[in-house]
């Protein structure tokens, strides 16, 4: 019961957050210099006609009221740049690619990050530890477009192991996923390394050993469960970050996803597309955080959902 009330409350707060997001983004986009129909060979008369057609000649607060009014009816509008294409269909077209890519990257980043972090913490060899440590530093500090281009060159062009464009077969996923996952893997492995090392020193580990439990039980049941708490709390923002798409990855590998659409819409001043994608991404982030917060008490029973 407390759970349902908590989720309802969080949804309400989420909607309020979304509303603030919509308002701020709406006015910010209008503050950008230029407008959707600007071009070298467009006459002033045509511009005015377009502005009237799309209601861009109205005072800004009226435009805002009109937009929100339509939004409340569930209408996100159509693209300015691609006439007749509704925002919903735009998202429906881009989201599957972006989200499947993001989810694959998320799952592999979680798995690899945890494995590497635990290995780093458990290994008694200085060599293993320092190699893994420098790899994760590398992963955090090298920008992902460099990884992407290097991989394309080596595995795509020279070795011809993986295709470099599109997202048609599982093979197509390899390089974009690796590019997306490098940073999260490094981040998660550092987090797991730190929390695992800390948990290994706790008294309950001595107690678990004193019971005569197997090494593997002590490591994976007693230590890992404690060490994963910070990972779970951080995974909400991470999955949102990965699922909302990366402009870099999507443009380098020419993947028709949301991230690419988003950046294009900003440079085109395609107001409705900007708004629509912002709402979509914002809602996704809010949802991911909510799911993460609901999952947290399952991992750490000391966190209680109240009210």
């Amino acid at each position, binding site marked *: 019961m407390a759970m349902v009330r908590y989720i309802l409350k969080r949804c309400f707060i989420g909607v309020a957050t979304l509303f603030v997001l919509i308002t701020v983004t709406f006015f910010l986009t209008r503050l950008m210099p230029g407008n959707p129909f600007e071009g070298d060979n467009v006459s002033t008369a045509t511009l005015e006609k377009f502005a009237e057609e799309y209601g861009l000649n109205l005072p800004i607060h009226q435009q805002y009221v009109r937009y929100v009014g339509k939004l409340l009816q569930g209408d996100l509008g159509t693209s300015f740049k691609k006439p007749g294409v509704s925002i919903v269909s735009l998202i429906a077209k881009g989201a599957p690619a972006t989200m499947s890519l993001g989810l694959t990257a998320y799952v592999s980043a979680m798995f690899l990050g945890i494995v590497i972090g635990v290995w780093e913490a458990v290994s008694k060899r200085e060599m293993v530890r320092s190699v893994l440590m420098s790899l994760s530093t590398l992963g955090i500090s090298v920008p992902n477009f460099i990884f992407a281009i290097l991989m394309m060159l080596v595995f795509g062009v020279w070795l011809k192991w993986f295709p470099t464009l599109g997202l048609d077969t599982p093979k197509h996923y390899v390089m974009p996923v690796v590019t997306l996952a490098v940073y999260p893997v490094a981040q998660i492995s550092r987090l797991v390394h730190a929390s695992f090392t800390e948990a290994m020193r*706790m008294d309950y580990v001595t107690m678990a050993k*004193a019971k*005569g439990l197997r090494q593997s039980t002590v490591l994976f049941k007693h230590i890992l469960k404690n060490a994963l708490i910070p990972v779970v709390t951080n995974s909400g923002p991470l999955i949102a970050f990965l699922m909302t798409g990366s402009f870099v990855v999507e443009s380098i590998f020419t993947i028709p996803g949301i991230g690419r659409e988003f950046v294009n819409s900003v440079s085109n001043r395609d107001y409705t597309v900007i708004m629509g994608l912002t709402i979509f991404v914002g809602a996704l982030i809010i949802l991911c955080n909510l799911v993460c917060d609901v999952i947290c008490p399952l991992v750490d029973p000391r966190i209680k959902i109240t009210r």
Partner: protein
Amino acid sequence: MKLLEVRHMTVAFKTQQGVVQAVRGIDFSVERGEILGIVGESGSGKSVAMLSLMGLLADNGRLLSGEIAFDGEDISPPSRVGGQTGLSLRARVCGALAHRRARRVHRERMRTLRGREAAMIFQDPMTYLNPVLRIGTQMTEGLRLHKKCSRREAYETALSLLRQVGITSPEQRMRQYPFELSGGMRQRIIVAIALSCGPKLLIADEPTTALDVTVQAQLLDLIRTMTRESRTSVVMITHDLGIVATMCDRIAIMYAGEIVEEGRTDEIFYAPMHPYTVGLLGSIANTERSVRQALAPIPGTPPDLLHLTGGCAFAPRCAEAMNICLSYRPEPTDRSRTQRCRCWKYCKSAAQEIIIRQQKGFSTS
């Protein structure tokens, strides 16, 4: 027959400041069904000695030497034989591999011994239970592993154990997490876990420090009944001389990593030999005495185990210290079949031999 016999146990910790000699060559033994009390101030090496016994030392700690016999079986860690020069490379590699194998075998033996044959009660109920696992899980995992019993049987055993240690509505507790229980309850659960597999040896590291007096009495009663009924031996580590007096058959007094005096409880209380023991007894409040009398604390602080000198570790605080105490280590002297003490007051007659032995020892090492 003796259940546990420890000889020349030496434990050291490597730290950034240097090597801490936490336990310096102690000998002790425990008979079946006997309760041995180990008394000493914080940092005297009591807990470290017990942890090394169980093979639970922290990574920077090392059991340097010592023979441990448990129930007639030698469970001392394999000593490294390599390092001799003149051996061929092949012989050295084989030696190292054999040593590794021996260590693995020993580790596995210690693991099966822990929890089943020798169990430990820890002192801090707040930190020794895993915060993210249910009490039920923590109670039954050892049982299921050692007794090879089903989930159901382990659950039933755990319930009856919880009842034995005086926990109300055990079914509910089994489903709860440690943070939902009070300190006293958690301590009793730790005790129940230690007792769960019916160990032959129970090591209790200040088992009652965290408990209020009534619960304390219950627990001590439980431990006592156990030793009587199933002939479990207990090593009880404590600061509390009151508990020692009522519970223990024999007492070992530890100071700066050494057992300075050892004897039957009555011998220690009525005829203490070592000045440190005398000092300890002098610092207990006696409510029965009619005359108001100030307690007599022992002046000074325990020595720094990083920088120990050649002499008796207690000498700087000892009112009866002689010149020899500062430069040579006294050796254990027996007074009776059960009582022995490490103090120059009692080994004066053997002084010549001891000095020669130590001078030789120092010159070679």
